[in-house]
């Protein structure tokens, strides 16, 4: 028995009374186990042999909890750079970078209005690598906001939100909001001028439904905004109670929610048979090779095979209705591509973090806001809208935009293969037309008030509710909706209408962001360049 090298047999063998007496003093089994320890521990962890064949590598992907978010095999179309630009994987990479650097920053950061600002200074000047770690955290967060938008554009323009992926698009919207919320709660924490006044403005935007209630003369009980403001601030003004709330949101609550939403987001891609791609995608066999489903058979009728390796995957899974050889194994092709994207993101974040310091304004001063008091770039479009009306620009239009975006896959149900940019030439034309219209409308919305003033300059006694409802922000939104409805009527296609509305919104967002960033100076007045700003 002692010579048995099969540990399973050894475990199942009856206990040896003599061996029990030997104990630690020198059982041959013990020494053998000790010698075999490294190998046995390794086998207990990975539970499969060296992955030398495609089959063994697929098995490895399938049986590993971290790798099994990938399907075991993947279609070459999904691996093309131009199909996705690696945006989704980049976002995962950025989220991981943010989590790691964020935990490191928590070692020194103190969520107190007295200490927070100084802990930023400590991180920058005293802590080894603290400067670079904070910079990387900041740059990765900005990249994440940018990439969420780019990822959304990629998924929209390739029509990858179509059935059965409608709800995954909605999860994407949730992740967009969570990313912005994480960014916002993050730049509150240094408790500098940006943090304090951003908190003040955000809390009052949350309370801005009061503005409408007040202008309509509704009684106090309709002022629901106060409750939201109080919940955010824990007080009626930004202070210690607000900071600890935002710290908890930023470090625990929101990352947890984002992690759960990301897991669901990625899981659903996997269950929907990988990334959306057109029927008859050119395969390694060459262009014109047989389509994913056999001729004369729709995807619904295709046999639903059950693979031990794959579980049941619906519809156009890599394994239904065709030869499995059209796909390639995820290991190494997909893992290699993901590693490349991850490395690129690391490189960009580290390079940006090394050479460009994250800004830190002066310590929070409740008496004097900066002039101009500007948010980070991704909120400047919103700030421009808010400068027309707090309620409509800060609550109304953003809510409408998020709900409208979320409804796209439910209102555009035309069945068409996903994975084709702009759904072909017609869509590309509508995209350019909408971009032109969107530009003209947004530029007019900024130029008219700058040159001619707005309703209050023309009619000083105009009721406030008219300004809340009729302002450049609401008019440009209405113009976009009208244009998209016209496109939908003209083309008789909901997809074309969606392309028009989406393109208009993206262009409008970009132009307002540009105006807020470069063309607004002290007192939010219009200046062509910063050199024209009045000297203080």
């Amino acid at each position: 028995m002692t010579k048995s090298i099969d540990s399973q047999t050894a475990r199942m063998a009856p206990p040896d009374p003599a061996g029990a007496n030997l104990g630690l003093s020198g059982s041959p089994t013990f020494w053998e186990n000790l010698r075999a320890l490294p190998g046995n521990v390794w086998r207990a962890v990975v539970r499969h042999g060296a992955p030398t064949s495609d089959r063994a590598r697929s098995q490895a992907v399938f049986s590993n909890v971290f790798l099994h978010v990938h399907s075991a095999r993947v279609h070459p179309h999904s691996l093309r750079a131009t199909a996705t630009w690696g945006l989704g994987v980049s976002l995962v990479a950025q989220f991981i970078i943010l989590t790691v650097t964020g935990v490191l920053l928590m070692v020194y950061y103190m969520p107190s209005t007295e200490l927070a600002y100084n802990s930023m200074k400590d991180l920058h000047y005293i802590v080894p690598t603290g400067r670079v770690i904070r910079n990387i955290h900041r740059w990765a967060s900005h990249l994440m906001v940018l990439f969420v938008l780019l990822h959304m554009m990629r998924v929209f323009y390739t029509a990858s939100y179509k059935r059965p992926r409608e709800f995954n698009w909605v999860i994407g919207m949730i992740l967009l909001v969570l990313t912005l919320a994480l960014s916002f709660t993050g730049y509150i924490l240094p408790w500098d001028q940006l943090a304090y006044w951003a908190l003040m403005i955000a809390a009052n935007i949350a309370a801005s439904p009061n503005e409408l209630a007040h202008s309509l003369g509704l009684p106090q009980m309709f002022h629901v905004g106060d409750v939201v403001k109080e919940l955010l601030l824990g007080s009626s003004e930004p202070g210690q109670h607000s900071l600890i709330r935002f710290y908890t949101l930023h470090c625990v609550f929101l990352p947890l929610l984002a992690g759960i939403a990301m897991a669901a987001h990625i899981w659903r891609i996997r269950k929907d048979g990988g990334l959306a791609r057109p029927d008859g995608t050119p395969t390694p066999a060459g262009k014109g090779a047989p389509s994913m489903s056999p001729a004369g058979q729709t995807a619904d009728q295709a046999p639903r095979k059950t693979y031990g390796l794959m579980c049941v995957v619906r519809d156009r899974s890599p394994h239904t209705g065709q030869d499995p050889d059209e796909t390639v194994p995820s290991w190494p092709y997909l893992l290699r591509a993901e590693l490349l994207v991850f490395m690129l993101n690391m490189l960009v974040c580290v390079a940006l973090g090394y050479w460009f310091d994250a800004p830190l304004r002066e310590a929070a001063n409740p008496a004097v806001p900066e002039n101009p008091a500007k948010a980070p770039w991704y909120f400047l479009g919103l700030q421009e809208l808010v400068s027309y009306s707090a309620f409509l620009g800060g609550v109304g239009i953003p809510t409408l935009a998020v709900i409208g975006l979320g409804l796209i896959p439910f209102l555009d149900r035309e069945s068409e293969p996903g994975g084709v940019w702009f759904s072909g030439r017609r869509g590309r034309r509508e995209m350019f037309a909408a971009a032109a219209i969107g530009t003209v409308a947004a530029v007019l919305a900024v130029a008219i008030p700058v040159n001619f003033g707005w309703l209050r300059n023309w009619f000083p006694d105009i009721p406030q509710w008219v300004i809340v409802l009729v302002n450049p922000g609401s008019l440009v939104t209405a113009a976009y909706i009208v244009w998209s409805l016209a496109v939908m009527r003209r083309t008789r296609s909901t997809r074309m209408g969606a392309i028009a509305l989406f393109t208009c919104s993206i262009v409008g967002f970009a132009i307002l962001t540009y105006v807020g960033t470069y063309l607004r100076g002290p007192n939010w007045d219009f200046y062509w360049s910063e050199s024209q700003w009045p000297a203080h």
Partner: protein
Amino acid sequence: MSDGKRVESEPVSRRDWLGLAGTGSAAAAILFSTVGMLRLPKPRVLPDVLSLVRLGKAGQFPPGTVTPLPAEKVCVVSSDQGIGVISLVCTHLGCVVNKTETGFDCPCHGSKFGPKGEVRQGPAPRPLPWLAVSQAPDGTLLVDLGKEVQAGALYKASS
């Protein structure tokens, strides 16, 4: 439940009733614990600062002067008729406005107010409020940041 009852046909079988009761109590437990958790972030008393602020002796604000006090977020307007205090908190989104030649300008979103706090331009929904002024027994001027009075109301300080 007695045996006699079980023989009769019941509208809801015992198994179903137990299942419904279990589901119902689970739903009630989730509902009440959620309500309890949501109630927590809203305290009964807010950790607020005193709204009554000391501005200094009346003699510090001679008639004909306009003194912005950004630390207190108010501006003291003094004339022969008395003293008025205008809030410097923008009625749009709460930034502290700056005193200019034409009145008050907000640095955050471009609201512009006249010298008496009236809205001239921009997104501000209301004029800057005038605040209630009083005097402490030692003659110090007090302003109540939480108490709005009619625009232009002046307080005759005793010196």
